[in-house]
């Protein structure tokens, strides 16, 4: 029987423990969107999604062995 992963549930995940992917889901697409004075417009931030693919691709190309994409775990 599939059991729910309890590691995330018992204690609130601190900012150090949250997965960067889960965080980016929330930080890049959502939240109060008020165009600041620094014109990093919505389009620019959305470009990060496309550019992340390019970064991943370049990281993969340099990886010594193809046993999975090297995941950047932020410390």
């Amino acid at each position, binding site marked *: 029987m599939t059991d729910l992963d309890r590691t995330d549930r018992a204690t609130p995940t601190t900012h150090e423990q949250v997965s960067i992917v889960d965080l980016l889901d929330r930080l890049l697409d959502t939240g109060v969107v008020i165009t600041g004075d620094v014109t990093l417009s919505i389009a620019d931030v959305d470009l990060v999604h*496309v550019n992340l693919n390019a970064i991943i691709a*370049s990281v993969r*190309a*340099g990886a010594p062995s193809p046993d999975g994409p090297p995941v950047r775990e932020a410390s």
Partner: protein
Amino acid sequence: MTAPHHHLDIDREGAERSLASLVLTVVELIRQLMERQAIRRIDQGDLTDERIETIGQTLMALDEQMARLREHFGLTQEDLNIDLGPLGTLLPRD
């Protein structure tokens, strides 16, 4: 714009492997399409037994050849894919 975290593998072996990966991905796409099409035709019931056998043998041979080629280049099934960005991947992930 930004330097990659790792150096791109630009030696000859790596370049060959990248090219092979690309070519094999396209061949794999064709294989999958042909396989689906063949199964559809068989289900429609408009193929003779001999024809079915021939198609099956051809696809089986292609499948085996693909496996040999992947092995030769050290590629897994999962390596054969092309990321089309917002369009997703060329081959289904699952």
